[in-house]
């Protein structure tokens, strides 16, 4: 085990990042029940770099933290000494609207960033549900979070164009650039997307932006069953409409498919007609009011808490109805209550399972994971949220496949001391 931090005083950390920016940790800083000793929130990349090299020199186990909205991602940490927060790195570094590019510090909240961009009729095409809880841009990149509009704008990997990271030894390195089109050097911004703090701290990121759509409309239909839901989604996918999002909300008694159309008014109304016609063979098609669209449409916040296990199920887009059946079947066999939402056009479903004993929850996770891995090579089932007792019994990420040894070698190169978020990453790295 690395040093537990007992030889390090908070004073040493304060002398690096400033008195106001470091403190002893409290219980609230614990991650999955593992409490750190210190919390430091450096104000500059230079301080962050000095902090990192000090901490790794002392062998402290480090967990980077944004707003802390998604700290439950991954396996419980095997050790934890120091939380490195980005709260004091929350600025916009450069924003030239005419270039449709923005450079930000990692600690800025997505909401604050979007507000600034909206004033120029622009946006970053990312809308993960954690946004409402104040998620930071750095945290969103590190966890590869995405939302409904990924159907049109893609995910973090499609929008990030440059990155600055601080490695455990304090090295400050950048990759990419602030131009949308660039192929010079390796694309480390992609490497750090989804890296869950296992390779270094993301200090800054650059993104390409999109114009804010003028008009929006959400259509909804309640397909009779899972087969119809799959067919309806396919009908929209293969049409020439260009929806921004297509979301599914499903429970044991059926559910709703919503389609978000955005753009200029003329385009939105013409596309609404096309999509309404396509969907009308699956049920009555409604246009949602904006309040309904917030609740039902592509903006639903996660209802985390209690004993719910939330799985992110990634499978083939055209297999929507089979994957739904598979999750519903596992829930039924375990006597669990299913609550499913998901990106119907992208092959991603979030399955919430609750109302059962630990044993039943663990069994359902294993059943769903087994079936997805067998049926959809390349697919995955990631445990997003779960009571600690469940998390301790199931691997959060599932198997890494034949690239496991390569992932381990990458981890070893970037974090040779093994101090970055130990234990939490795929394969227990």
């Amino acid at each position, binding site marked *: 085990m690395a040093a537990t931090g007992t030889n390090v005083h908070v004073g040493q950390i304060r002398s690096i990042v400033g008195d106001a920016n470091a403190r002893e940790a409290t219980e609230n800083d614990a991650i999955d029940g593992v409490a750190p000793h210190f919390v430091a929130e450096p104000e500059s990349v230079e301080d962050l770099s000095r902090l990192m090299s000090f901490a790794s020199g002392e062998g402290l186990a480090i967990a980077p933290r944004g707003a802390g909205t998604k700290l439950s991602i991954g396996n419980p940490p095997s050790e934890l000494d120091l939380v490195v927060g980005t709260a004091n790195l929350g600025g916009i570094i450069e924003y*030239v*609207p*005419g*270039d449709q590019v923005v450079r930000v510090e990692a600690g800025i909240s997505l909401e604050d960033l979007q507000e600034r961009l909206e004033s120029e*009729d622009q946006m970053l095409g990312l809308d993960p549900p954690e946004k409402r809880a104040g998620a930071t841009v750095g945290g969103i990149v590190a966890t*590869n979070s*995405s939302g409904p509009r990924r159907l049109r704008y*893609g995910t973090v*990997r499609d929008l990030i164009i440059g990155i600055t990271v601080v490695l455990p030894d304090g*090295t400050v*390195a*950048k*990759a990419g*650039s*602030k*131009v*949308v*089109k*660039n*192929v*010079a*050097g*390796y*694309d*480390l911004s*992609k490497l750090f997307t*989804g890296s869950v703090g296992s390779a270094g701290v993301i200090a800054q990121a650059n993104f390409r932006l999109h*114009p804010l759509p*003028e008009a929006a409309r959400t259509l909804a239909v309640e397909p009779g069953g899972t087969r119809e839901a799959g067919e309806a989604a*396919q009908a929209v*996918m293969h*049409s020439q*409409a*260009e929806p921004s999002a297509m979301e599914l909300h499903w429970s044991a008694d059926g559910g709703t498919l919503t389609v978000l159309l955005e753009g*200029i008014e*003329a*385009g939105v109304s013409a*596309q609404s007609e096309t999509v309404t016609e396509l969907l009308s063979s699956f049920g009555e098609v409604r246009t949602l009011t904006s309040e309904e669209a917030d609740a039902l449409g592509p903006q639903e916040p996660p209802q985390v808490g209690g004993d719910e296990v939330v799985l992110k199920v*990634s499978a*083939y*887009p055209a297999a929507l109805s089979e994957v739904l059946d598979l999750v519903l079947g596992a829930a039924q066999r375990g006597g669990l209550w299913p609550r499913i939402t998901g990106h119907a056009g992208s*092959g991603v479903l979030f399955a919430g399972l609750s109302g059962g004993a630990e044993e039943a929850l663990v069994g359902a996770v294993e059943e769903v994971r087994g079936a997805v891995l067998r049926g959809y*090579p*390349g*697919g*995955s089932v*990631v445990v997003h949220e779960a009571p600690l007792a469940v998390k301790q019994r199931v691997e959060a990420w599932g198997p890494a496949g*034949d*690239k496991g*040894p*390569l*992932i*381990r070698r*990458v*981890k*070893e*190169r970037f974090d040779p001391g*093994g101090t970055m978020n130990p234990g939490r990453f*795929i394969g*227990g790295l």
Partner: protein
Amino acid sequence: MEREKLIETMESILGPQGVVSEREQLRTYECDGLMNYRVIPELVVLPENAEQVQRIVAVLYDEGVPFVARGSGTGLSGGALPVASGVLIVLARMRKILEVDIPNQRVVVEPGVINLWVSQEVADEGYYYAPDPASQVVSSIGGNLAENSGGVHCLKYGFTTNHVLGAEVVLADGSVVHLGGGKAPDSPGYDLLGSFVGSEGTLGIATRITLRLCRKPESVRTLLAAFEDTEGAGGAVSGIIGSGIVPAAIEMMDSLCIQAVETAVAPGFPDAGAVLIVELDGPEAEVEQQFRQTIEICEANDASEVRVAEDDEERALFWKGRKAAFAAMGRISNDYYVQDGVVPRTELPAVLKKISDLGAQYGMRVANVFHAGDGNLHPLVLYDNAVEGEAEKAEDLAGDIVFVCLEHGGSLTGEHGIGEDKKKYMPKMFTSEDMDTMQLLRCAFDPHGLSNPGKLFPTPRLCGERPGPYQMHPVQKAGLAENF
């Protein structure tokens, strides 16, 4: 391994028809699309399937022989330049489209498949493959992946990296890994696929690639607008983008380029200081309204003429003119050097002015054709190789141009890659810490530096591989991680 023995081993894997060892035949492969660099490889091998690639690489690893992958050899930065003591692995015989999956909007191909074939294969189903480099009739998907190639329609639809969803890769040690989820999204762990795309053959060889297909748009409208100078055309570009329109493509050509293209393929472009080709696509009602708006913006920026393509034939003619731009230079100059630099869009006017000043200073002609929407410039420096010293002068001028791009916050390359050609410039864009950190990735994929060695970075980083027993990572030692 001795040469004879190596040939014998390769022939045992590939048969005699899969191995090229005669010096004269080897010459065919001495360079890629950038002909100023030439190296004759020790051996050329032509595998027909992934398993052969894997076996070849495993042998080379055991013998410590470096290798270079080659697709169609159209690269413009010397990426597929052979190494003298190494083996060139040509993937041109791996040309099968393995699977077309319309319900999932995916296609799985071998690396040698030509870019355009993919779109042709799925056209009847109403689909196409979006990244469309001007070389799409010859360049391979494997080469596109390795260079993260762009195309004129990448402004709206993204680059190769946004359309490659999975790859089977043979690593330098002969092991096979599957990167990315393929048909399933969001494979957990590092985005190694995203890191592999654009790595210019230095991280291994892609043997099987899953691509995203796009639905053909309901409507496509294309116009050609003529302006007095590039500044006027640039104003129109800013106006269009600023109005919230995301065109499928906006391309600009200056007068010298128009002249060359007219001489070469006679698309009937107007005699102007600059032309723009603007294409909008998507749902019809949206395209119609925004197309009208685009015409108004061009007119408001004093376009002397706006020509709307009335049918597919006329649209094809506009694009023929644009896509012929590089080759057309041959009509107005004996030789030319293609530069590839990027600047933030708002810096375009200032940068174009500096390029023209530099041309005057060097006393050389520079033609400009570029992807105006994303600030990707292709200045073509014209020269005559027969004149002593001109080639060097052209290269210096092209170098100065790319430095101007960097001064204005841009990049060394938008799509042609660093390869052999631009590695010397890398320190102008990246610090040694940046490059050392990038090379950590190289060390993880290929610690002995066997895959396309010597490219991309000015100095290779030593990976500090200790031969001998496997070293346990601290995390594993503590019993905290499973041993993969």
